[in-house]
């Protein structure tokens, strides 16, 4: 027997550690998918290969830093006043950056500097992280006279205010604590002398204060002090916000809020449950409302529909009731009339009984009553409907609410007093300011027009901002502006006519004074025409008898005459003047063209005259153009050197005018087409003339080079184009004339 056995028997712990059975545990049969291998064997042929997994230790985690020591660092809390230094565990390297990175609020630093000037050995003792939460509020400070001027309140004595501020600061605006500790005992005002004691002055009772009272007083004082220290304008946004918050404090609102919260808090579970149910019900009603209205509407529609059919008409033509639908309608109509009669009877009975106190009530002129009774009063008209919808079941006690609540009507005095008006024009609901109407009134459709109107108004001594834009004044103003607009319109018209007169006069001067030139022009035109003709003859080998007369017909007078003849029928002034202007332009270019043709004919001395003439006319045209620009108001007035500019403007306009000319050509061509046989020749002519223009190109350019302003190629082209179109127009005219 071994010692160990004896010990074992004795129950003593073994002295030497018993050799543990070192036998490794028999490996347990591997399970796969929760089944024993043997069981698996039954299902699948052959045992699955046993995977041998070598036991492996967990890998050592790789840490990217070197382990650092922890050390006990001293720290202190600046919020404490005793300067107690405690220690806490901190990593070795952490201390330094933390001190720097900790945001130190001014309050902290102040507090720290206040208490730790001497007993703090060095600044390297770190401040507690929690110290920043110790926010001290600035005490609102006020002197006695400041209190007297700004802070006086009938309800609060200075002593109590001081007491409140002290408490508020002491408890850091924790109002729950403040209200708990608030116990202000007002001192008797007079010095407590013996006599006074004898008289026994009643010490003023402390007023009962709620938390809201305290808050509002404190905020008012603090806000005022803040505003006194830094004026509103020089506050930074956070200060301003704070100030706003304090000034906006409304004790009543706060009380109401608390009441609500308390009520909510004191709800019993049953009440809460009921509320929930009610809310659900409400949402259901709201959801179904639309459908309900729809249904009711449909019902009303059905009830109302037969009314639309005139009974007399129904008698007249029974064909309406041939179909089953018609029959249905007929039945409904009859039922309806029956019901109506019933309703009328009932109404009569009721009025005889005199039970309609409600309607009588609504006639009393009290405003408040009118408002509530309005529905009842107006409901009479529809009560028949209401009873009808009730199925004639005698349920007339419950009256149908009037669908459109007829609003009270205001008498004249009320209208004036409440500023009510019923404007005739369509209203857009919303808010406007009265002066907007003034602005709108003086605005015309174009900027120039607007300035003109405003100038006119200024001339009349009407300020642009009316002193009192009341309804009546604005209406009057609108009337005035309407008048001014008309006036401006008339002036514009007159200016236009003026311009026309000028042109006519200029033309007459041309016709009378420069007769010789006219003749030359004629001959020039003629020669040009003959030239054209000869070329044409060359090209086509056909002779046209019409040609020689073309030049003559190309003259201003005859052409204008033509035009005049055409236009005289037109009543429309504007259209007419425009047309004439166009003619004018054409004439002018014709002159230029003629003069150019003269050059071609080597009549050099005539050249200048021609040009002079052209410029003369062009000047007139320039004026015209300006007028037109005024009228159109779109283009800026670009005035410059008279002649050159006139031509330049012509150029500018040439694009539009080309269009116009073309249009005219087309018109005239159409006219010619009526004539029939002349069509071809005129068409040809146009082509030929164009060709002529083309041929003359170098010459024309050379000619333009002689002119004071240099003619660019574009201008030459536009000129050419125009001349071609003019000539074509002329030739068209000529053919027409021939026909006549």
């Amino acid at each position: 027997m071994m010692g160990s056995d004896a010990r074992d028997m004795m129950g003593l712990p073994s002295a030497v550690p018993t050799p543990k059975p070192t036998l490794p545990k028999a490996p347990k049969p591997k399970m796969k998918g929760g089944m024993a291998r043997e069981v698996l064997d039954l299902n699948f042929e052959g045992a699955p290969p046993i995977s041998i997994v070598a036991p492996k230790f967990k890998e050592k985690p790789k840490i990217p830093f070197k382990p650092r020591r922890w050390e006990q660092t001293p720290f202190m809390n600046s919020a404490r006043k005793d300067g107690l230094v405690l220690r806490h565990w901190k990593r070795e390297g952490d201390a330094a950056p933390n001190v720097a990175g900790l945001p130190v609020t001014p309050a902290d630093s102040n507090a720290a500097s206040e208490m730790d000037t001497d007993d703090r050995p060095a600044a390297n003792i770190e401040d507690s992280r929690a110290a920043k939460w110790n926010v001290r509020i600035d005490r609102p400070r006020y002197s006695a006279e400041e209190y007297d001027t700004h802070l006086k309140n009938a309800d609060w004595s200075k002593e109590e205010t001081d007491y409140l501020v002290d408490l508020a600061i002491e408890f850091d605006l924790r109002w729950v604590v403040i209200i708990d500790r608030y116990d202000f005992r007002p001192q008797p005002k007079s010095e407590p002398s013996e006599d006074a004691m004898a008289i026994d002055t009643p010490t003023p009772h402390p007023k009962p204060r709620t938390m809201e009272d305290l808050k509002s007083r404190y905020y008012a004082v603090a806000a005022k002090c803040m505003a006194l220290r830094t004026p509103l304008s020089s506050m930074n946004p956070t200060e301003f916000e704070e100030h706003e918050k304090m000034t906006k404090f409304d004790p009543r609102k706060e009380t109401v809020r608390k009441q609500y919260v308390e009520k909510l808090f004191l709800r019993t579970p049953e009440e809460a449950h009921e509320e929930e149910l009610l809310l659900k019900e409400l949402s259901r009603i709201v959801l179904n409302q639309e459908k309900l209205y729809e249904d009711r509407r449909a019902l009303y529609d059905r009830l109302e529909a037969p009314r639309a059919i005139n009974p007399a008409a129904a008698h007249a033509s029974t064909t309406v009731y041939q179909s089953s639908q018609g029959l249905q309608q007929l039945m409904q109509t009859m039922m309806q009339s029956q019901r109506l009669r019933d309703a009328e009877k009932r109404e009569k009975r009721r009025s005889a009984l005199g039970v309609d106190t409600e309607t009588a009530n609504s006639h009393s002129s009290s405003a408040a009553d009118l408002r509530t009774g309005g529905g009842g009063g107006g409901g009479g008209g529809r009560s028949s409907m209401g009873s009808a919808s009730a199925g004639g079941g005698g349920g007339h006690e419950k009256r149908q609410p009037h669908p459109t609540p007829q609003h009270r009507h205001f008498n004249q005095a009320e209208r004036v007093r409440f500023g009510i008006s019923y404007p005739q024009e369509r209203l857009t609901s919303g808010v406007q300011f009265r002066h907007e109407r003034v602005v709108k009134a003086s605005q015309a459709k174009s900027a120039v027009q607007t300035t003109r109107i405003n100038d006119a108004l200024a001339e009349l001594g009407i300020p642009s901002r009316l002193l009192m834009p009341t309804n009546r004044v604005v209406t009057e103003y609108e009337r005035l502006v309407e008048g001014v607009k008309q006036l401006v319109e008339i002036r514009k018209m007159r200016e236009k006519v003026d311009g026309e007169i000028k042109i006519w006069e200029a033309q007459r001067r041309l016709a009378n004074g420069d007769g010789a030139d006219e003749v030359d022009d004629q001959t020039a035109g003629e020669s040009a025409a003959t030239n054209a003709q000869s070329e044409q003859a060359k090209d086509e080998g056909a002779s046209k008898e019409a040609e020689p007369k073309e030049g003559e017909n190309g003259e201003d007078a005859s052409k204008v005459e033509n035009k005049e003849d055409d236009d005289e029928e037109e009543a429309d002034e504007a259209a007419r003047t425009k047309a004439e202007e166009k003619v004018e332009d054409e004439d002018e270019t014709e002159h230029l063209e003629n003069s150019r043709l003269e050059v071609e004919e080597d009549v050099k001395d005539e050249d200048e005259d021609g040009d002079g003439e052209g410029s003369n006319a062009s000047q007139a045209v320039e004026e015209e153009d300006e007028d037109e620009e005024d009228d159109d108001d779109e283009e800026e007035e670009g005035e410059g050197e008279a002649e050159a500019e006139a031509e330049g403007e012509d150029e500018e306009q040439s694009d539009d005018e080309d269009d116009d000319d073309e249009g005219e050509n087309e018109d005239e061509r159409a006219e010619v087409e009526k004539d029939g046989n002349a069509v071809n020749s005129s068409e040809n002519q146009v082509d030929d003339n164009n060709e002529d223009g083309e041929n003359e190109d170098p010459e024309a350019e050379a000619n333009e080079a002689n002119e004071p302003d240099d003619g660019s190629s574009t201008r030459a082209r536009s000129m050419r184009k125009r001349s071609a179109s003019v000539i074509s127009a002329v030739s068209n005219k000529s053919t027409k004339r021939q026909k006549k």
Partner: protein
Amino acid sequence: MPRWPQSTANQPSRVKGIQVHRPFVYGSLATPFPTNTPRPSSIPPEHTHRWTVYLSPLSPSHPLTPWLKKVQFKLHETYANSTRMIESPGPFEITETGWGEFEVQIKLFFVPEAGEKSQTLWHALKLHPFGVEGSEERLKMERGGEVRSECYEEVVFSEPVEGFLEVLTSPAEMRGKAGGGGKGKKGGQMVGPDRGAELPVRDAPGVVYSQEKEQAQMVLLREAGKTVEALMKVEKEKLREKEQRREELGRDGERG
């Protein structure tokens, strides 16, 4: 589909064809700092004027509270907290110091009953005397040093919401009371402190905008209207003449 009337219960309906207006004034008052007396150090040295921009009732009997909830003044961005909001009862005014004139944006917010969006007015702040050189007003301003630029304005509620119309058309003494209390007899149309939109009859010290002034304005406008009419007559005559002349010329041109 037209809505069935009852369904407007949750959506306030507007009263058609009706317009209600209320007068008020807005403007600015500027006074230059006196040159001889030292001024508070808080004011920057370049500031030359103290000014107030305001929106105020025409008189105490034309309160703004029934319709106006708050007013927002937007000053020049260079001012600190340039957007200032003032809630209802308070005097709607901002007092500041400065050296430059600018446009102040005045935004009016209406009471929730009105259900209207806010509206904006612009007021050009005036620090220096303005108006026609040598005119009476200008001289007065130059002498007094006080520059007031004020506008009378009317806010027009077109087709107001029913509830709001009631607020606007119930006299002040009735407002707030539970309905039915203030019925009274027929002759009880006493004029309470709230005169609504009614203007004072005539000018008086402190009363600038009155029916008298309104009438004067009307007269001024009517006179101008007459002038315009006369001018128009002349112009028409002229036009006719000119047209005749043109006709003549045209005929001459034809003949020639």
